[in-house]
């Protein structure tokens, strides 16, 4: 029996903060799931528009472009915080993680405020008409993800601040950045759909 071949893996590291980790793949799948959901909604938005004579439906304001576009720029910038935190997590640098997470939270918070202001300025809601239903669904679902992710970034920040940043928590900081990139990336087609599509779709009349 002693001649059975063996491979000793005790020398391998007990964790790896990169795309080699199963958790990274789990987060990627989560992004696929949510991304698919949003793309189906975007497809359904245009499908619905094709079946209507006038778009946006009479009475709905055309979207404001300035505030959402500024917010988009800030949102993309907020990825820098996530990237900083995630690289710091790989190197186990506590100040880097704290700085990155804080920067991310600050920018994300500013964008959230801008979004709430913009949201309040809409002259229709989900009950008004079909465009209202879609716009509110897009903003509502995305903001739900957005706030949930901010809460978890804040929790990670607390964990790092109290010094409990073990390998698993640092892995958490890393995948947190991936979730954030997803939330930012998926916002781009949604932004184009809800803020620009009414102009293009209208122009075809």
């Amino acid at each position, binding site marked *: 029996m002693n001649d059975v071949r063996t*491979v000793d893996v005790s020398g391998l590291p*007990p964790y790896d903060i990169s795309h080699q980790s199963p958790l990274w793949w789990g987060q990627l799948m989560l992004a696929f799931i949510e991304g698919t959901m949003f793309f189906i909604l975007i497809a359904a938005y245009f499908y619905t528009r094709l079946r209507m004579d006038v778009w946006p439906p009479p009475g709905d304001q055309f979207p404001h472009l300035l505030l959402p576009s500024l917010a988009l720029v800030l949102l993309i910038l907020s990825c820098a915080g996530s990237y900083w935190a995630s690289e710091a997590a790989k190197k186990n640098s506590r100040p880097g993680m704290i700085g990155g997470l804080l920067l991310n939270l600050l920018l994300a918070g500013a964008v959230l405020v801008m979004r709430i202001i913009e949201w309040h300025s809409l002259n229709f809601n989900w009950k008004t008409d079909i465009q209202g239903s879609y716009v509110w669904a897009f903003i509502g679902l995305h903001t739900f993800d957005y706030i949930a992710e901010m809460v978890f970034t804040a*929790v990670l920040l607390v964990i790092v601040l109290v010094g*409990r940043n073990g390998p698993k928590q640092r892995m958490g900081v890393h995948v947190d950045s991936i979730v954030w990139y997803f939330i930012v990336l998926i916002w781009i087609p949604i932004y184009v759909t809800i803020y620009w599509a009414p102009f293009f779709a209208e122009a075809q009349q």
Partner: protein
Amino acid sequence: MIATQDLAPQIPNQAEEIEQLQRSWRHPRGVLGWLSYTTHQAIGMRYIVTAFIMLLAGGIEALLMRTQLARPDNNFLSPDKYNQIFTTHGTTMMFLFAVPMMEGMAVYLIPLMCGTRNVAFPRLNAFGYWMFLFGVLFLYWGVFTNAAPDMGWFAYPPLSGPQYTPGKRTDYWAQMITFTEVSALCVATEIIATIFKMRAPGMSLNRMPLYVWSMLIQSFMVIFAMPAVVVASSYLLSDRTIATHFVNPAEGGDPILYQHVFWFFGHPEVYIIFLPALGFVSAIVVAHSRREIFGYTAMVLAQVANGFIAFGLWVHHMFATGLPQIGEAYFTASSMMIAITSGVQIFCWLATLWAGKPRLTAALHFVYGFVAIFVLGGLTGVVLASVPLDWQVHDTYFVVAHFHYVLIGGALFPLFGAFYHWFPKMTGRLMNEKLGKLNFWVLFIGFNLTFFPMHILGLKGMPRRVYTYPTEMGWEQSSFIATVGAYVIALGGILFIANVLSSRRFGAMAGNNPWSADSLEWATASPPKSYNFEYLPMVTSRYPLWVQRSERAFVTGLRSDRREALVTTLMDAEPHHRYVLPTSSIWPFITAVAVSIGFAGSIFNPWYLTWGSVLSGLALIGWFWPRRPVELES
């Protein structure tokens, strides 16, 4: 304590190490402990048992319907009860039996077949099971309070909309979908991560067993298909509860859009159920014909193609909605195309059986039954793919016959084969073969008695979902035969349960590998220990247990004082790093309760979603809060 594997390396302090391994992987005691299990064998078994109970529930509903239809002008069931029962039957079989059963089998088998200790995310796995269970309880709460859904299992608006189905019946249905989708998505995610990153060293992608391939493809299909049904059921629910306009024609919404989104999920759903069954068939055919699979590459490619084409078929459920002809022609072509990839697999199995030395076990009987029934169902599928024929038989019993041939033939027969094949692994005892073969013949005859006459009923014009019919239609005889057949199927089910119960107690001891099968799950004890393998196996061939003993190899050096597994690279499965798996935890259960409060309450008051989100957020923080401040760096 010595290793339970058929072959294991001898190393110093072995007994001590294995005892430590057992301590690390021990289940917690007590009720709270039971709610905290995170091992894949326990969770997989819970899925299987719960889904089997749902099969029985769906079966009883089917018997009630067949009893009502046994003779014309029958008044055994009222029209309203009949509507509730056929809807609950379809819903139960699709969402609460078929998908969770396939997921449960995968949760049990995939880590064993991949040669690792647990799924990649054990707590997510537990959470998924609780969500499924709460979804079951939620729907059946409705059933027992006279609020079972009654608008058909695909809930088309406007019938399912607020104007035509007031009350809570449709809401129960739509929210039950959310529960089961969360569960299926949890399993799909962890199965993909497990297969990609936790395969035994040496198990490169081209050495993966075909069942593992089928689950990988199925999991990707779940990931891209299930979001569609989440959208569809959310459309319905929000139109009903907060007056959005998505699919409600009374408010300017488009009911055809609902059908598109629903079937963009609904057609892949059929393959989500069917692909794991193909994996079962491959595993059974290889093990019981004692031969390597014929055309491994062709099989894998055919399954991948199945996965893709399945997303391009959905409109063939909507031929009668008046879509443009060019679209219909495209979907006819793609619907016929899937017969090619399915055909390739059938021929590969036949070739394997032909060239092998098949043992006519009960499991193989079910495979033969599968081939016969599924080919028939596939042929009627080709009929239905043709638009003029589809118009003729749309919404008749011909369609009912077709999808029962493909679903029972394509999924249930392989599943029973899989039960006979893996029962010894799961319980340590063999099932009774004689009773198994009898079980097969009773089911096979009962099945054909029930569903073959439905083809004729459909061609004669009997619409589906009618609660009764007048004598002069001439549907009496075939309907009566179908009812007799349904009771024969029930007898087959009873035989199966009897076989399970008696074999659990009195069956012959199975040993590690009663079938001399090829894949890794047979290398370890039956039933497996909660850590599966004392020493993770290495793989040097597509059929790891069929190589010379001297060619087999094992992994040493994983720590036994905590739950450790090995992460390997995606393509070639080379060892990359060690991975500390989480232990038992009550948090998945608590989180599932919090999420369920939000889901269940929201059909009565939308604010529950807010409270549910807050509760779930708190539960998730508890879940992720680091208990041991800093884990060891070694």
